[in-house]
């Protein structure tokens, strides 16, 4: 193995030293093709990001594919309603691995300002795994680019073998998720147990912030 300093030094001399892993991930992260898939307000900012002023093409993502079969990245840009959620999950299932999801804007993350509505899904991560969340209502185009760079960093950091490898290299990993059905009062099931952590107490140190945490006094 070549250590990092030596690699940089060699790079200055015009000699490129790389590993298969780096080369592979470099190729993957430099051609992430998003799906042309707009839901609501954030979709307009997404379109603005692809236009001349912000120019998402600089990151290798200029080709917005209309078909999920050809896309690597789903930008969930806007409110996911309960009427739309089955379609979103189905589109995600139709995408080929490797596939990533960016939840753009408050509505896609948690239902946002509309979360108290009867027809709004409280976050797309109830049904499919999300890689990057961008808060904002709507996020600025630069924020989407920054999220895109965050995703590229994530792709860069994925090892090809062992723990943490991408799903398409892991034969046992789940790539498709059950599509919810539209029932008489709500979606059935209301969330996908495999993706959405029902036991909120188990998600990190913030669990005391839940409504039960009202009695727990803070440290200061």
């Amino acid at each position, binding site marked *: 193995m070549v250590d990092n300093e030596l690699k940089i030094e060699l790079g200055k001399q015009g000699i490129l030293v790389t590993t298969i892993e780096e080369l592979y991930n470099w190729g993957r992260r430099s051609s992430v093709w998003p799906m*042309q*898939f*707009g*839901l*609501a*307000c954030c*979709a*307009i*900012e997404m*379109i*603005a990001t692809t*236009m*001349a*002023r912000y120019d998402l093409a600089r990151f290798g993502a200029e080709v917005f594919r*209309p078909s999920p079969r050809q896309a690597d990245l789903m930008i969930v840009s*806007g*409110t996911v*309603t309960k*009427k*739309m959620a089955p*379609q979103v999950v189905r*589109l995600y299932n139709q995408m080929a691995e490797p596939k990533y999801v960016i939840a753009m804007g408050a509505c896609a993350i948690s239902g946002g*300002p*509309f979360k*108290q*509505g*009867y*027809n*709004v899904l409280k976050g797309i991560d109830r049904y499919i795994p999300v890689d990057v969340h961008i808060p904002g*209502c*709507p996020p*600025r185009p630069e924020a989407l680019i920054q999220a895109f760079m965050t995703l590229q960093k994530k792709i860069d950091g994925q090892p090809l073998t062992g723990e943490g490898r991408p799903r398409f290299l892991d034969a046992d990993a789940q790539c498709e998720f059950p599509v919810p059905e539209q029932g008489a009062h709500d979606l059935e099931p209301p969330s996908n147990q495999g993706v959405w952590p029902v036991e909120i107490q188990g998600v990190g140190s913030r669990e005391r912030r839940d409504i039960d945490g009202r009695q727990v006094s803070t440290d200061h």
Partner: protein
Amino acid sequence: MSVAETRTERSAGWNRPPAVEPEGEGELLEVAMGPHHPSTHGVFRMDVSLDGERVVRLKPVFGYLHRNHEKIAEGVAYLASMPYTDRLDYFCSLTNNWAYALAVEKLAGQEVPARAEYIRVILAELTRIQNHASTIGFLLQEMGASGTPLMYAFREREKILDLFESLTGSRMMCNYMRFGGCRVDLSSAWIEATKKVVAGLPAFVDEFEALLTGNEILMARCQGVGVLKPDLAVNAGISGPMLRASGVNYDLRKVDHYGIYDRFQFRVPLGDHGDIYDRYMVRVLEMRESIGILNQALQDIPLGPIMDAKAKLRGFRPKPGEAYGRIEAPKGELGFYLISDGGPNPYRYRVRPPSLINLTVLEDMCLGHNVADVVLIFGSVDIVLGEVDR
């Protein structure tokens, strides 16, 4: 589904679109266009029955972006609904603000100072220009001119959004108007910047027209396609540029005399044929008229307060009663119907969405045309799903 079935279904209804006789004997092809589709108008589905390439039946399916705006608004204070109105027609947050503010002002009997009225006119006309430019861009995108017209439109739109951001703080969700006025005052620097942008707009419209208006492909695709007759347009409650493209002279800025539109000189462009090309042309001409209004408003804007002195931000409780206020939004007649029971939140809060009602005649316009024209006709209606489904 067979041909005979469509015919019985149609005869059951009243004043339904005229039946299109399928040629030949074959089965009809059913295509569900949407809710995910490559066109840029969001989550909307059309169930189309095709006889070869010809459309013989078209049923729009709504609700994929139904965000319960009305239900949420009935549970929160009057002021708290203002930022939600931004998200109705997310291209035109400022006109949505205005319509809602107008309805509440009618309900509570509030006055708006002159300077605030001028600010509202300036912002509404800027909104109209960027909406029409983007609409034409999207229409051309759907026609297959992928990229160029939309890029030109968005280049101009970004300039206007920068103005919105420097005044209201946000590019799209401005949340700027208040009951009885506006939230922050214009600076003279902002007016100067706006004058500069407005001075550049005629050149942009000229450029847009040179690119598109005489284009033979555009004419071939648009002329005579999706014709809407004026009597049907009025009966179906169509409003905005679509109504005027059918030749009906009905612009709420002239009819209702709301705000201070009486002080400005402008004409109402009308179409002759009511086809896609007329709708395109009416929008281009409206942009030119809006530039004229902007020039007058920026010239005459008076000094003074921007809020009604009696208006209060918190604890706003209008007396029991109801009011319907409407304005000429870029998409058409945007109305708000409010019922107050004297409490802090409205008892009934209803948005009259122009985009939804303009889609009433979608089937009438599409019947008999090719399936490729459906997307085009749909694009020429100019809808935003946030407003269709609310």
